[in-house]
């Protein structure tokens, strides 16, 4: 009789796996969205600010970019918990992952804003546009096109980095698979499967990026 302490992987697990996939997509979308919005604001500030403000902002962003994400996640969730305000893993993970994304996005967007030649902005002003109109109608669309490939690169790496949120207990794809592995003892099969899932999530995005890039190359 092949009775075993472990139960093999079965179709009954597909719902559990799907939850993991969706949670990965969910937290990635939130982090990329919030990180992009904050990064845009921060990138603009850095492109416009004086040297003092720039050094200050640059320092904060450097910390976010240099400290490993996994350490930021553990520090933040432990500290918040210890302060008596435990956050659920999704919220804590979203906050840190969004800030981490912001730090990288801000450099991308700063480059975008700075890539628009001053002469083009002056051309806009000479047509009667206000400062903000040149930001919205000239610098934003032209600068953002220039940095779209870099933006996509950051977004794709955030999707993969979201696996680290598993360390604070968020049930995303990696953590789901770890639980399945400890139950089934079939790590190879499961991890290959997880890898394929990440690929399926990321690859269409990078294809879309190439498509947009080609379309914009006019």
């Amino acid at each position: 009789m092949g009775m075993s302490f472990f139960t093999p992987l079965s179709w009954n697990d597909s719902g559990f796996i799907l939850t993991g996939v969706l949670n990965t997509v969910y937290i990635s979308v939130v982090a990329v969205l919030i990180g992009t919005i904050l990064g845009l604001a921060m990138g603009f500030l850095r492109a416009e600010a004086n040297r003092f403000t720039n050094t200050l902002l640059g320092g904060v962003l450097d910390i976010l970019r240099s400290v490993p994400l996994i350490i930021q996640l553990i520090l933040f969730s432990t500290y918040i918990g210890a302060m008596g305000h435990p956050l659920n893993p999704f919220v804590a993970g979203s906050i840190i992952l969004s800030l981490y994304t912001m730090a990288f996005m801000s450099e991308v967007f700063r480059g975008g804003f700075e890539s628009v030649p001053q002469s083009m902005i002056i051309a806009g002003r000479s047509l009667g546009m206000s400062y903000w109109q040149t930001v919205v109608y000239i610098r934003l669309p032209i600068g953002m096109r220039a940095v779209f490939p870099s933006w996509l690169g950051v977004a794709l790496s955030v999707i993969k980095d979201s696996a680290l949120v598993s360390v604070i207990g968020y049930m995303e794809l990696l953590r789901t698979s770890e639980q399945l592995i400890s139950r089934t003892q079939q790590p190879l099969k499961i991890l290959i499967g997880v890898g394929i899932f990440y690929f399926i999530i990321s690859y269409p995005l990078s294809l879309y990026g190439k498509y947009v890039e080609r379309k914009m190359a006019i």
Partner: protein
Amino acid sequence: MIKIQDVHKSFADLKVLKGIDLDVKKGEVVSVIGGSGSGKSTLLYCINGIEKIQQGRILVDEIDVHAKGTNRDKLRQRLGMVFQQWNSFPHLTVLENAMLAPRIVKKMNKKRAMEIAKEELNHVGLGDKFDEYPTRMSGGQQQRLAIARALAMKPDYMLFDEVTSALDPELVGEVLDTLRMLRDDGMTMICVTHEMAFAREVSDKVAFFHEGIIEEMGPPEQVISNPQKETTQKFLSKVLH
């Protein structure tokens, strides 16, 4: 009328304009000539208030450009400007380039803005390029687009800053033709230019700039064909062969 009175301008320690006086009447075409670094382009930037001045004043239809309360964004609607670099907006089609400012600055509705944009584009000979992206066009075409884009704001004055200097020689003609057409329309123009033949032909008045002052000014027959000052003669002997 544009009145420029005793205008001084410096960048840090560098004095670029050292007391410029110049009147441009309605319908007049004034050409500004002179060597590089003589302050010609800077004067245009001061007229539309992109650059500040340190002394003197500039009046556009009696509005003091550099006075504290002046709404310069609004004033610039009357002062079209075209630059050495055409600065087409690369993310917009030709038609959209010409429609943008009327739409967002004058808050015109789309239909009206499109009418005006098409009219001006036809005027400069770009009637078959509405849906083209400017980066696919030649420098001469893009420069004509820049002119149409400025004209779509229905300015009272046009300022041209060496608009043919960055063009391949074979493209200069089409842009100068466009300027001639504007003069024939009665547009008031200040042209900073290195095209002496053009300046002689179209100008009512030529101002020769030298080291931040107007060294010699008068009708083109005098300043270009029969200069009185030695510096003017020297400059012209270098540019006219």
